[in-house]
């Protein structure tokens, strides 16, 4: 009875409804990835995704039931465990497509880097909530260190997309917490200066060629590069854009994408799931997805404003950054606005780790919403 009551009060509808709708859209979009033509209801992909959703539900219930303050209190422990898992991946991880990102646990593969995203949100919230040190330039060192350690381990896998996601997450949380804008801007300028050396010497060949492919399809690129691009890594962006563009206003219809342009879109069940949505549901469907994300993000921000507890606010901001940047980067790369980084679209992309972590993040926000606090933050958190 008490458990049921807790769960009922924990469901924060402004966040849960868009999340569930996004899950539904993703589930429908999976029909467009089957190699066989025609709509296949409850195919293999659907069943595996359903497993992920069920596991995600279970994990979300656990997250909701534990008070978020207890989670924040033990954030360093969670962080340490996540770091340990990241280390373990480097030695005992499963290799797929030349990346060592997965750990196998009781026959189920999962990505520790996904877990680390949530752990980082909790850890940064724990670290920042009652401090003022990050308002000085030197004081930014500690949160940066907390972020850079898992980033380095994730880059080692390599998983550039997830690693890069840690940066906007940190910046958003620091900015929300009241870090000086000039300090953050200075660091961004320093980062911008490092772009070329990193591109030249810090990236792997395939990562560099993805950037080359992106540059080649820009309007000002030389024509010979555009031609060359078709067979190179720019191939992915081009095929994705063809799928999106050919969808038109109302799309080709659910399950009809295979006969249209989706056959040629690589990783269409995963990183390019938005291309499937845009192709089969058209501008209406893709705008609807963006609207759902906007709803979700604004609901989280509204909660962040309304909530009085610094840790709760920071958790909301962290989850906002996670969903916001992940969705933006994924959709932007699908429609050719950004280079390909290998990042999933929350709730829509196929993948149990991604779905479970996304649902846990929503549960975390619900957890914050369900436990209003009357504590007042100091300084900028007033």
């Amino acid at each position, binding site marked *: 009875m008490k458990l049921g009551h807790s769960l009922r009060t924990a469901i924060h509808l402004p966040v849960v409804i868009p999340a569930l709708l996004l899950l539904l859209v993703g589930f429908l979009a999976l029909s467009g990835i089957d190699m066989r033509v025609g709509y296949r209801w409850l195919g293999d992909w659907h069943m595996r995704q359903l497993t992920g959703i069920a596991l995600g539900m279970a994990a979300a219930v656990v997250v909701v039931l534990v008070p978020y303050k207890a989670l924040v209190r033990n954030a360093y422990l969670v962080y340490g465990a996540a770091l340990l898992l990241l280390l373990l991946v480097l030695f005992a991880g499963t290799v797929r497509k030349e990346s060592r990102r997965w750990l196998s646990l009781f026959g189920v593969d999962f990505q520790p880097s996904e877990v680390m995203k949530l752990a980082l949100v909790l850890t940064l919230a724990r670290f920042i909530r009652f401090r003022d040190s990050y308002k000085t330039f030197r004081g930014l060192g500690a949160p940066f260190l907390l972020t850079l350690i898992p980033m380095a381990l994730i880059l080692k896998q390599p998983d550039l997309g997830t690693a890069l996601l840690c940066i906007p997450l940190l910046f958003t949380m620091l900015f929300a917490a009241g870090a000086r804008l000039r300090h953050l801007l200075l660091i961004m300028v320093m980062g911008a200066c490092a772009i070329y050396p990193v591109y030249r010497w810090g990236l792997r060949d395939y990562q560099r060629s993805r950037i080359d492919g992106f540059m080649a399809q820009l309007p000002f690129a030389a024509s010979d590069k555009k031609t060359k691009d078709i067979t190179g890594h720019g191939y992915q962006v081009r*095929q994705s854009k*063809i799928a999106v*563009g050919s969808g*038109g*206003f109302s799309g080709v219809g659910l399950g009809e994408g295979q006969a249209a342009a989706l056959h040629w879109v690589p990783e269409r069940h995963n990183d390019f799931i938005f291309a499937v949505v845009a192709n089969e549901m058209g*501008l209406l469907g893709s*705008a609807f997805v963006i609207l759902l994300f906007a709803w979700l993000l604004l609901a989280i*921000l509204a909660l962040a404003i309304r909530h009085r507890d610094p840790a709760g606010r920071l958790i909301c901001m962290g989850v906002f950054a996670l969903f916001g940047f992940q969705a933006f980067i994924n959709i932007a790369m699908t*429609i050719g*606005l950004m280079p390909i980084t290998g990042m999933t679209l929350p709730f829509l992309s196929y993948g149990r780790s991604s779905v479970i972590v996304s649902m846990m993040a929503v549960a975390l926000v619900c957890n914050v919403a369900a436990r209003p606090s009357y504590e007042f933050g100091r300084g900028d958190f007033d």
Partner: protein
Amino acid sequence: MKPIPYRQRVGLLALLCGCSLFLLVCRLTALQVFDHEEWLELADRLRSGWRPVRPMRGEIVDGKGRVLAHDAAGFELAVLAMPWRDGRFECEKCGTEHLHVPRRCRRCRESGKKFVKRADERDMRPIAKLLDIRVRELEALVKKRVVAVERHVEELLGNLTGVKRERQRRELWFDHGRRPQRIRRDVSYEVAREVALQRRRNPAFVIRTSHGRVYPGGAVFTHILGRLVEAESIVVERGDGTARKLPVEVGRSGVEYHFESELRGAPGWVEMKRDLRKRTRTVLDERRAEPGRRIRLTIETEVQERAAAALGDVEGAFVVVHAETGAVLALVTAPRYEPHDYVGTLQKWIARGEEMGTQAPVGSPIPERAFRNYQIPGSIMKPFTALAALDSGDGSFSEVIQCEREFRYHGIRAIGKLRCNMLHNELNMHGALRISCNIYFQTLVARMLDKGRFPAFVRMGRRFGFGQRTGIEIASRNPDTKFGRWDFDAARQPGTLIASAIGQGWVVTSPAQIARAYAGLATGSLPRLHLIARLGDTATAPERVALRISRDRLERVRAALRDVPRPGGSAYDYAGELARYQMACKTGTAQRGTRKNNAWMAGFAPARAGRPPIAFAMAVLRSDLGGGATCGPRLVEFFRYYYSGGKQ
């Protein structure tokens, strides 16, 4: 700078979020609404494409329409220059690859010592055993392919240097090294199955289905039909400015080479909708490939096979032609090789033989000895010497010449080849032809030499086609090719010229030329030999050139030759049975300077038992015996079958 209040900061983030999402919607609108048509066209283009269609190469059939060469699907054995990836461990149970030895296989969940490192060497032994060749031959063949891939990669690398070169080389090698390189075509289903079963243990060797040329006629037709080799790709254009490459095989020798343009046909193309796996879903448009033209040979398979069986495994040739039309009825050469055996040493041997022609090593299966291999003919030239003497007035049928076994020219005793084997005493021309007396014909030519009428001999030889193209379509396309030797000049020693009168000395000729000359002798006009009875819908018209020799003169020579297989004739002991078929023939034994002889026998026979009038020539090189003893029994065996209507 005044710190921004919390609500404003969050408001700023909300604004940033809204702007970003608005940007996405704008971009989507541009893609899906404004540029929709363009992307839709690109999507359509993705789904549709065209590919060239290989034309069926024309069939080659024998005189009765039996197929001797046709295109068919089959299997071919290929080797991968780089069949494995370094350092991969493979699950013994399911074959899944792992970078390191895992605790459990990620697919079948097997644990324990079940992981084996992939073979890092090609296992030649089982493959060589399957192909029935030596391991060293297979190794050489594989090495050749691997080296070819390496060279190709080096060519592609060009002038790249340093790290870039290494990186590019690795990528190119990974790409090209895994493309199958054919080492044998038309392997049997059984071999293909075995190789496929060994694939996991021996990943370097793969079986591919192929669109190959099949030669059901076997070895007896190889030198006639020739063989195909892989050539550069041809470019197929569709007419809209697009073009595709189509790898084709072209003839390397024989009919396949000389009638390449007729046999190849014209490639077509097909435009289709296809899926990601390049499988055709719908055909949108097509231009059918035009198959090559059908070629019908004059040869009949059964006759050819029996002729080959009669000749046996000796080194030589046997030609049978239609005496009136010049159609080649049998064209046999030995040794022979199977058309599908292009492996290792044999391949090199054949290629070398093709290049070297008459200079090919002893016993080598050069493509043919019937019309390209010129040899000293021996006494089968004597009828033509007789006709030349009659033509110049230096001889007559009634003139009797004393054979003293030795020949003297202006008091000088000739030695060696110019002697007779036995004392013939007094002989007229009929008798000299019947028992093949050297002294008689040498005396006639010596007389012609003394009176300056030797050119009459040369002219007579030319009339009968010596030193000239026989007409066989696959002999040579090179205009500079010499067809034997019949270019006498004043610088030749008299001994050489006199020897030429009995087919020794300077003269060399091919069995096909001899058969053609005897066809002329039989009919009074010289036919153009031809192998091709029909090219597509066009039948080959027979061509004949009148010899302008009196009928009586020819008939008297024929009568003398008809007595050769009869009692008292030079071929009676070995080929007496030929007389039953009213056959006129002549034996010849040309000494090669060693103890081995070129054994010849040539002749003609009238139409009989449903068979057309024929002329024939058989040559057995490096024989221990004379022409009659070597060729006689072989010819008896063949003609016994030939005139029995195929019953024997």
